[in-house]
């Protein structure tokens, strides 16, 4: 009898030992699951600009200013540069957290005449993952407005806000006024904002970029909590 009981208990302990060895996984607790919902990857910002001939007269100043704007971008944000000239989207650089490479790239960009290609830039932005903000510097708009608005809707759905700096310094009768209306509408539809790209007050533009990068890097709440004047100006322009 005693032997039999012993055998039974042996069986039980064997079984438990097997259980201990087996690879069962405990279903992860709710909190462990939830913590994964918070993304740890860097958010992205796409910096795009118009490099067509109409921007030639003030190009050197614009280039310096654009490069200076990059200094304001913090490290926890991945940035890429895109520009269009000669009637097509010339180049989109890879996303990087180091601004220096992009600053060099800006120095190399040359103006080439052609119609604007903002729609191509917007279409590209729709397909970029983790993109939080799109910045565009341009003066004219010579494309199909309806398509631009459609793409703006797509960007809104993807949660990409578009910030446009409108360069009104172009000479020789370029139609910057009607472009301004289109830019304003695109910015509004994506929940972004439009500002003048004033070559005479680079500090203002730079401060605004700083505010945009705060938004792109840390979200709208960080922008609200920021004590920068430009952050408050940006929020006001975004209707937030």
């Amino acid at each position: 009898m005693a032997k039999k009981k012993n055998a039974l208990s042996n069986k039980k302990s064997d079984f438990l030992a097997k259980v201990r060895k087996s690879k069962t996984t405990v279903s992860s607790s709710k909190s462990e699951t939830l913590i994964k919902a918070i993304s740890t990857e860097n958010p992205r910002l796409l910096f795009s600009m118009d490099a067509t001939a109409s921007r030639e007269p003030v190009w050197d100043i614009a280039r310096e200013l654009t490069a200076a704007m990059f200094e304001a971008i913090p490290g926890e944000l991945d940035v890429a540069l895109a520009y269009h000239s000669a009637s097509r989207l010339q180049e989109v650089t890879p996303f990087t957290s180091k601004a220096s490479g992009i600053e060099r790239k800006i120095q190399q960009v040359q103006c080439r005449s052609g119609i604007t290609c903002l729609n191509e830039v917007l279409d590209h932005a729709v397909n970029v993952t983790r993109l939080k903000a799109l910045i565009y510097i341009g003066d004219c708009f010579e494309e199909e407005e309806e398509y631009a608005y459609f793409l703006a809707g797509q960007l809104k759905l993807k949660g990409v806000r578009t910030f446009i700096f409108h360069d009104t310094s172009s000479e020789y009768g370029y139609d910057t006024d009607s472009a301004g209306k289109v830019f304003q509408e695109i910015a509004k539809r994506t929940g972004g904002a439009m500002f003048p790209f004033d070559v005479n007050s680079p500090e203002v533009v730079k401060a605004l970029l700083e505010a945009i990068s705060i938004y792109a890097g840390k979200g709208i709440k960080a922008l609200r909590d920021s004590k920068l004047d430009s952050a408050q100006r940006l929020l006001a322009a975004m209707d937030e």
Partner: protein
Amino acid sequence: MLWKSTEPVTDPYTGVEHHFPFGDRDSSQSVVLSGANILDMLERVRLEVPDTDPPQHKMYWRIRDSQLLFSKLKNREEQGTIWKKYTAGGTKVDEEADFIRVEKKSSVSINAVVFKLATGMTGNYAIASRQIGELAAHAWSRDLIRAKLLYDTIKAAGGQIEEADIPRQCRTKSTISQEVETAILKECCHWLGVDPDKKISRPRGQPRKHRYKEEKNLVSGEVIELELLDDGSVRGRLICDFDGLRANTPLETLTLIRLAELLVHLREKELEEDAELLSAYLDAVDEEWQEKVAAEAQGTTVEVEDPWTILGIDRSASPQDIKRTYRNIMKSIHPDTSGLPNWISAKVNQAYEKLQNQ
């Protein structure tokens, strides 16, 4: 093929009668004939459709009035009797129906890169040129058959036919040069082991063509679909059953925490596109969702830190009072002098900044 006139054609400018083509066409010796070729006898015009009100216009093909082939008197010096653009020539081979078949020299112009490819594949300029010549000759004879068919179709229809009624095989697909280039490039593809007929799904640099005018503005992955409504608000739903939720479940019926779980499960299934859309949706719904989810995960609620309580002052305090209190506190808790940890002074600093902003 040159057009043959059965009856003499009267020159509208001089009244002289002519037989097309010019030259001694009955001679058995090789004589160069000149006249209008088969395609010159056809013209494509935009005409009003009869019995329509308001008048509608359509494209028609018709046989050209042979009198139109003559050039104006003042141009005769340089162009000759018939319009230069309608003049063709060649040595007679034989006669058939309305036409005389002639033989003539011609040239074809192709892209320099294509020519280099052909040279590279054959290894020799001469061989490449001869092959290009053969390709072009084949293309021309195919084109001639097409032209003859087009002429016959138009003639059978009584000299005029609507463009839409022309059979497919009578229409041009490409020029002779393009046909030669295509043949060489296809050959080159086979040479490189690439299938030339493989469809390129998205040409580089070309924007996708959205049929955005008819469509609603929406984006969708495999599970999540977001739609932009006319008032600018966003609505989302599930396309299929996922994570215990039924298809068509509107996202607005789910709690924040449930959405966050859904996001994790989408990421686990590597549905990046859907995860992207859902996190964009979460951003739109609640800008503080990340903090709230983090708090839920740690089992705490978001701690509301009141700067007034931290500094221990009354809400009625003046800016000067706040500053004085802040300085007094900092004197006693500064990490350099007090030995207390940094976070204590950081918290006080934060509270002070917050009040300053107000």
